[in-house]
């Protein structure tokens, strides 16, 4: 019982980070049908920025760095839209995927030139504090991951579903031409969505980084998992991305705890194949 609740908690925490990253991917896929692999690079940039903010301003600056990182990476995401993805809007989906792959290489290659290859540690002030909730224990940092990711996901969900701008994003993702006809500036909406998605990925990087190491290649695993999540949830579905993130986190955590940790990573990918065999368009198709 103790073990199962500990595993479930771990699953919720990892799942919340997957959900946040997948939400970013899903928004971008929804609006331009781009499988934006570059978000793995943006996730890594988020972690590196946090590392430097904490190094310069002290570890108490850790949480304050989150909004700063998000603002910078929203700008970065908007740049990738304006100078890369916008130019291939009419191209086949596979082509836009190669653009995303190229951007990822630039981000990873660039950061290993600028920041170096060595893995770095972020000293978060919350890493040392262990909270005991009955039989299960969790560091404050990991609890913070969960809280921040869930809050951000909920805020973005409400933004997309309840505000006028959100409505514009949803309209543009249904049909670019019709959205144009009712007076929506589709270019601006795309820019905004790429920025927003990138900001979310970087936020996930900021939150997860103190519990892992920071290095140029750190984004590859998370972005791959995030792809699994949005397929699991149904391409482009916002609710699906959030729920799918938690499902994946749980499956991985329980699988690693009860079956074998050697094939820990295989669970995430195996579960997707099983789901696709029975539901070829994901669990919560839009």
């Amino acid at each position, binding site marked *: 019982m103790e073990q199962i609740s500990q595993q479930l908690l771990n699953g919720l925490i990892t799942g919340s980070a997957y959900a946040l990253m997948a939400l970013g991917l899903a928004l971008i896929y929804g609006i331009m049908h781009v499988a934006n692999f570059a978000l793995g690079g943006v996730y890594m940039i988020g972690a590196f920025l946090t590392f430097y903010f904490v190094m310069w301003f002290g570890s108490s600056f850790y949480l304050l760095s989150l909004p700063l990182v998000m603002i910078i990476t929203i700008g970065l995401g908007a740049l990738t839209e304006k100078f890369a993805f916008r130019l291939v809007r009419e191209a086949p989906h596979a082509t836009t995927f190669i653009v995303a*792959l190229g951007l990822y290489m*630039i981000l990873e290659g*660039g950061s290993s030139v600028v920041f170096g290859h060595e893995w770095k540690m972020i000293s978060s002030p919350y890493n040392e504090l262990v909270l005991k909730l009955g039989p299960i224990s969790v560091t404050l940092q990991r609890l913070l991951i969960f809280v921040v990711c869930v809050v951000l996901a909920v805020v973005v969900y409400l933004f997309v579903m309840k505000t006028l701008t959100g409505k514009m994003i949803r309209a543009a993702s249904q049909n670019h031409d019709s959205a144009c006809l009712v007076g929506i500036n589709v270019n601006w909406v795309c820019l905004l969505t790429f920025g927003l998605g990138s900001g979310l990925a970087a936020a996930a990087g900021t939150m997860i980084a103190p519990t892992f190491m920071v290095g140029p290649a750190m984004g590859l695993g998370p972005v791959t998992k995030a792809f699994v999540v949005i397929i699991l949830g149904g391409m482009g579905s916002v609710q699906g991305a959030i729920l799918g993130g938690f499902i994946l986190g749980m499956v991985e955590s329980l699988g690693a705890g009860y079956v074998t940790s050697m094939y820990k990573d295989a669970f995430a990918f195996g579960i997707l194949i099983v789901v696709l065999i029975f539901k*070829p368009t994901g669990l919560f198709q839009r």
Partner: protein
Amino acid sequence: MSAPLTSPKFWVYFIFLLIMLALPWVLKGRYGIYLATMVGIFVILVISLNLVVGYTGQISLAHGAFYGIGAYICGILQVREILPFWPALVVAIIGTGILGILVGIPMLRTRGPYFAIGSMCLGIIVSLVLLNWQSLTGGTSLGGIRGPGQLKIGGWMIDFLSNKVYYYLVLIFVVLTIFIVNRLIHSRVGRAFMAIREEEELAEAIGVNPMRFKVLSFAIGAMLAALAGSLYAGYMGAIDPDIASVGMSFNLLVMVLVGGSGTMTGSVIGTVLLWMIPEWLQAAQQYRPLIFGFILLLIIIFMPRGIVGWLRAIHPKVAEWIS
């Protein structure tokens, strides 16, 4: 291939083949021949992936996995001394083909991005199994693969341990692959593949069974990938799970799309180019991945249909010669 002697197309093929035949005598040193041999193996891989991606329209990210499985079947059979190279190569091709059918039937029910990511997951699982099933695969590396060794025909002896001889062996298989795939795409079956690529429902409406042809294309692709894998295993003598990684599948997809998906020439150009760019960038040292990313981005932004697609657009005559 059926082009008359006087057509420019024939001469383009002819000159290309002459260059390929002369290559080992022009290139300096072992490294040059090594590169040429690897490019040859990759041409087989990229053409077979192009059959699935470019002609049948299914973005597969499991191709690296089939390459790896082929290499491992061929390698394990030799290391365990169950079969020598040539029969092992045949078993690897047939075995991987059967696996392609078994995997293709459930996976090809999914479409578009679902198939792309589903096949990617398959590829990841294969590379994890190759790494972790140590009693079978030897874990991080499998060495001691003998390869084709020496072949005695009458009084002649062909020594495949020689780099030049192995290059010509690979070249024969490259020409064979180009010939088979070329025949295939100009047949009824190939037209069915392309009909599915354009519009699956429409293909079904005119009597093409999409599942059957998609699985066929996937399985043929897997068999050719296994051929490339076996040639690699026989050439290197040692293999590791990295050859089946998702990174490999990404690379192959990039080669297909940069060259021009759905064109035979594009696959060859894409493969050669993406092998040569990193070589040219050797002097750039740690900036290499960064510059490579920029080059890739620029090529694909300015030529969204690949190099051959771009050539076709600027000059229809050029397209006539090369496609």
